[in-house]
């Protein structure tokens, strides 16, 4: 009984702070409202005895939100991030898309023939959950991850304004790199 109440309370917190993301008028508040939503979801995972996944969710999401704060200063021109601003735009299409996504996912929940649990998982819950979700699709995952990694590297190489030839010279033979900002390694 108590567990049900706590679970429902966490669910309400997750949804309410998710709604708050679009209602507040500051990037900082929106960012951390989203963080609270994720923390509540992490706590709900803890209630399924998925200790590792729950705690890691909290860890990753809070870190992600903080990184977002770095990016919002780095890339938002004129720093509107520091001013009050509306968190919604393109309202009509956003509503259509979000309602459509919700209907699709909800229909999926109701219509998919879920497999009946053969036996309750024994031993390590995290491991058996991983087996169930990923077991037959491991090849796909193994293919996807190097592609994702290569994409990240490629994007960084393309975005980097100063590559190694700028730093180390045309024949890469400079003894210490020429950095615009001094400090760190090699002056």
């Amino acid at each position, binding site marked *: 009984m108590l567990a049900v109440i706590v679970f429902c309370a966490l669910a309400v917190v997750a949804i309410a702070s998710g709604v708050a993301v679009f209602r507040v008028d*500051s990037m*900082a*508040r929106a960012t*951390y409202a989203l*963080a609270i939503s994720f923390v509540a979801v992490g706590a709900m995972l803890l209630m399924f005895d998925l*200790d*590792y996944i729950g*705690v*890691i969710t*909290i*860890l990753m999401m*809070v*870190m992600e*939100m*903080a*990184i977002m*704060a*770095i990016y919002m*200063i780095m890339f938002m021109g004129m720093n509107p991030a*520091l001013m009050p601003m509306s968190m919604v735009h393109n309202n009509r299409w956003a509503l259509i898309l979000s309602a459509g996504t919700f209907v699709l996912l909800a229909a999926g929940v109701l219509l998919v023939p879920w497999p009946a649990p053969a036996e309750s998982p024994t031993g390590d819950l995290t491991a058996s959950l991983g087996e169930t979700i990923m077991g037959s699709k491991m090849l796909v995952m193994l293919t996807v991850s190097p592609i994702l990694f290569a994409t990240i590297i490629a994007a960084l190489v393309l975005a980097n304004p100063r590559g190694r030839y700028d730093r180390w010279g045309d024949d890469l033979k400079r003894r210490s790199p020429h950095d615009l*900002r001094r*400090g*760190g*390694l090699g002056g």
Partner: protein
Amino acid sequence: MSSLLNPAWALLAAVVLGVLALVGAGVHGMVIARSEGRSARSGALSPVFELARLLRQRRRRTVAADVLLWRVGCGGLVVVALLKTAVIPFGSWILADIPVGIVWFNAMDVLLWAVLWLLGWGANSAYGLIGGYRFLSQAVSYELPLMFALVTPAVAAHSLQVSEVVAAQNGLWFVVWMPVAFLIFCASVIAFSSWSPFGTAAGSDIAGGILSEISGVDRLLVLAGRYALLTTGAAFAVAMFLGGGAGPLLPDWLWTLLKTLLLLFVFVALRHRLPAIRPDRLAEVAWIIVLPLALLQTLFVAIVVVVGR
């Protein structure tokens, strides 16, 4: 080793944490007094005086501050430190010996990313905001080495449970064969507590940065929170690397206390002995030298564990 504890003991844990943090602050007061040519004893009580002063001080306000987020930032440090104590063993007692205790500790220090940035953001002051961003850019440098430093004892103990890690050090303390991980962990503790030499987020060159606008009880909470974070960091280092409560003659809780205090004193005393490390210069060093070192340390331990089986 872990005996199951009544949750009511959490109250006592908070008191112990508070007393240790106060002792740490007292030692800092003594260091300051010595450096100013007074006797060390005259500085020992300075945190108590400061506490009384800040409790009576009226809050200063700033224009258009984001008060909600600011207060969250001010109170957050102490809350994070208290949440950390849940998985820190005190002798053979531990409040919540969860199977993923190490990950819990790590998740809590990631919360500090949010807390310290909010502290800088909330005041709506340029110096505060610069301080908050200094902390974040420093965090990007120390967090991955910290994670691998925490992974290393877990690899050796085959477990993320803190009590198992302590038990695995029965023969040999982990600090002996993973000194690099120990040093990285200690440096990270100082860094996530925003303590010098990693304290530029609150540096005097930006008028105190994240501390510049906070006053009264808010300031008290933040300053106390920093000492509490240093304390929990020292206590966790004792459990991870220094054998927990292991030691001759004395009971295990007393050994835990002694080792924790010793490490805390080192952290506190380091503050005025090293030059400030700028986050922008730290990044390259952390990613090109320290992170590979941490990985090599983990690799070494993993090989020893596999070969030793």
